[in-house]
């Protein structure tokens, strides 16, 4: 059948013919209906299969990481792994506390810097900017989202760290602050563009109501627009946080890669991701070292899952209708 062939929808049935076609005994109408119902059923099966497939992938990743990771505890005690700061694989010491702490501290520090900044950028973009500037800025931010993280890391290493050294007078400059700044620059476009979109999506009628009661623009934004865009902003924050948490390349290049506790802003340290990527090429396949790295990957997964659940819970706690 060629693409140009149009099914004849114009046939006018007499009463009797109509009855027959509804019963499905007339050849032509039936074959069309059979075809449609075949498509319909197939479509449904494909949709369900895709959904199942996605779930399967998630569960098999969790299973693989978890199953391999759990082998760590054959040689290392739970307490040592989670609370010891001694990570010396050469001596069979696998305490991952430094990396877990580093990851949490780095993510929080990044969020503390990036969320307020993104919010201000988004408000500026959606509420205060004239149309021509909006049309120029939005594509720029969208492009920034797509820049590979290695580029951010590279610039962090060659531009940011020397700058930090000269501004603060530290000798190294590597550490959690440098990493947080690089990550902030990375997640800023993501968070601010999604926040911007969710602010734009707040219905005009809420703004009208607020202005008509005599509110200023600042009052309207703070008291009506931001609360109404809350769930979109939460979503933006999750995405930003997930990106910061899992980011590896940019972090490896500026964090210093030394297993010591990040108790100062300028102190070379290491986080889960950077430690995994730096060590995985060198480990023997069947060793506690390898298992410990798997376990660290599993912890990253679990942290990001927990974060999503927590943010969802906060999100659900809005005004009950």
């Amino acid at each position: 059948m060629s693409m140009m062939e149009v099914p004849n929808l114009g046939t006018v049935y007499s009463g009797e013919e109509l009855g027959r076609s509804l019963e499905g005994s007339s050849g032509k109408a039936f074959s069309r209906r059979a075809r449609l119902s075949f498509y319909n059923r197939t479509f449904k099966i494909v949709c369900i299969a895709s959904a199942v497939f996605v779930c399967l992938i998630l569960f098999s990743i969790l299973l693989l990481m978890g199953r391999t990771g759990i082998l760590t505890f054959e040689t290392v005690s739970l307490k040592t792994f989670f609370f010891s700061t001694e990570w010396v694989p050469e001596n069979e010491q696998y305490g991952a506390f430094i990396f877990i702490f580093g990851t949490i501290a780095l993510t929080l520090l990044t969020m503390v810097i990036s969320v307020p900044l993104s919010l201000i950028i988004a408000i500026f973009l959606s509420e205060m900017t004239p149309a021509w500037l909006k049309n120029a800025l939005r594509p720029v931010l969208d492009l920034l989202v797509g820049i590979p993280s290695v580029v951010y890391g590279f610039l962090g290493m060659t531009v940011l760290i020397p700058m930090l050294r000269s501004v603060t007078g530290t000798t190294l400059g590597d550490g959690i602050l440098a990493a947080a700044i690089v990550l902030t620059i990375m997640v800023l476009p993501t968070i601010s563009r999604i926040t911007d979109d969710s602010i734009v999506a707040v219905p005009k009628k809420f703004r009208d109501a607020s202005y008509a009661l005599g509110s200023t623009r600042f009052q309207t934004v703070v008291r009506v627009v931001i609360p109404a865009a809350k769930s979109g902003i939460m979503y933006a924050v999750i995405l930003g946080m997930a990106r910061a948490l899992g980011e590896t390349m940019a972090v490896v290049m500026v964090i210093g890669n030394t297993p010591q506790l990040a108790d100062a802003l300028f102190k070379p340290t290491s986080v889960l991701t950077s430690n995994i990527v730096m060590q995985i090429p060198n480990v023997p396949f069947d060793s506690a070292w390898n298992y410990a790295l798997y376990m660290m990957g599993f912890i990253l997964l679990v942290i990001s899952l927990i974060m999503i659940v927590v943010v969802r819970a906060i999100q659900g706690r809005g005004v009950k209708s």
Partner: protein
Amino acid sequence: MQSIASQTLIDIHKLNLYYGSFQALKSVTMDIPEKAITAFIGPSGCGKSTLLRTLNRMNDMIPNTRIEGKITIGGADIYSKEVDVETLRKKVGMVFQQPNPFPKSIYDNVAYGPRLHGIRSKQKLDEIVETSLRSAVLWDEVKDYLKRSALSLSGGQQQRLCIARAIAVNPDVLLMDEATSALDPISTLKIEELAQELKDKYTIVMVTHNMHQAARVSNQTVFFLNGEVVEFSDTEKLFSNPRDQRTEDYISGRFG
């Protein structure tokens, strides 16, 4: 019914309004009396809503809008540079076509305006919320559910909530922009009764596309056509004995 004008509150003089190159209002002149209901009627696009929105300067937010002429409320020119738009909007409240409560609790909706204007005391806010909801004849229906989302109310209740929210900041004028057009007949009737009660305290200007509504509730009626005032008189007179042929055509349903 009483004759026109106890006392003029809003004085509109030779008002022209342009959206870009389109002239939406053409030399509109009228005196709107205080503590009465004035209705604007006319076919869609005749400029009645535009005129209403000039009274609290909501048109300021539409780009490329230009205004000529003068509007004074209580003697003050509302387009002069000294006038603070926020204060003007506090004094000239507005109820919109679509009920637009905020996605907040019923209490927070009514308390929104007073809070904007600096009232913090819980006791004072409680008092304002109660009196406003009572004035909007909504108190008995919602007094036990003040913490519930305003979006859980029916459309008619939402619109009365919006009226309560508007009067919570103690305005002098209440603008109603087709405030019943999204509501069912019973809710419409309630809002009309409410308007009748409120006119003892407030000057009400309403836009309506429903001539019967204008005839039922208003004291004065203005008929607009293509951005011009065709006729402005006592409601009873306008509907029983219109001066202008176009008014007669419109109210007898020959167009519009």
